[in-house]
């Protein structure tokens, strides 16, 4: 758990940028070469490579070179961990409203005229 936290920091830092999110979005459809990935962005190739470095450093993507082409792919595990973290941090109110739903459903099931007994 302890060495898991810095990894999350890097994942969220990596995602805290619209260009990098757009790259992640693109890669979610499948592996893409660096030049194809760079194409829609109005920035220099070194700038694109810098973004890719951040993404790769966070574990969100992996890249490998075959011949002269470097291909990037998404690492779903890092995204999953980021998503899990969010799910666990559901707000106090979200949890309360879940319980309210449970309460209303349980009440419905045990509905008897003016029944006073409860747990």
């Amino acid at each position, binding site marked *: 758990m302890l060495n898991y936290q810095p990894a999350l920091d890097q994942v969220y830092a990596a995602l805290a940028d619209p260009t990098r999110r757009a790259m992640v979005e693109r890669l979610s459809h499948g592996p893409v070469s660096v030049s194809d990935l760079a194409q829609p962005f109005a920035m220099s190739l070194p700038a694109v490579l810098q973004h890719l470095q951040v993404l790769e450093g966070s574990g969100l993507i992996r890249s490998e070179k075959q011949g002269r082409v470097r291909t990037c792919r998404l690492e779903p595990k890092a995204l999953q961990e980021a998503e899990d973290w969010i799910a666990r941090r559901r707000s*106090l109110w979200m*949890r309360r409203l879940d319980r309210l739903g449970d309460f209303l459903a349980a009440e419905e099931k045990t509905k008897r005229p003016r029944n006073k007994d409860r747990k």
Partner: protein
Amino acid sequence: MTQHSTQHATFVIERDYDAAPARVFRAFADLDAKRQWFTGPAEWGPDEHAMDFRIGGRETNSGGPKDGPVHRFEALYWDIVENQRIVYTYEMYLDDARISVSLSTIELKPKGKGTAFRITEQAVHLDGHDSPEQREEGTRGILEQLADALKRGA
């Protein structure tokens, strides 16, 4: 230690419940009913909860982890429209420190046989006290954007 600061946060949560508005309203209006869901995390012990559910009435709830700090909620009801709307303000304390002041608006609308539920919270968080709830609420907007982004990417 006393570095004073303010941070404003607003969030809206919407939910659909199968229960009719009158039943959802009762879950807020009746202390015995409210006690069953308006509680802290499961690992906290039993809390103290008192409520005078009428316009101008107060509600207090305090509890927390065994080793502290005590989380105290002090609310004042400003507007109640039966089965439709509840407006209250509340202060949150961690032990003696006031960590936030909030305005909550709960709206209930019939939806089929059930209820479209909406809560809007507008809060000022004071002096950077960082309770889990505060952090959760404060970061929720960001997390939602991120979750949306992740969903779009998934």
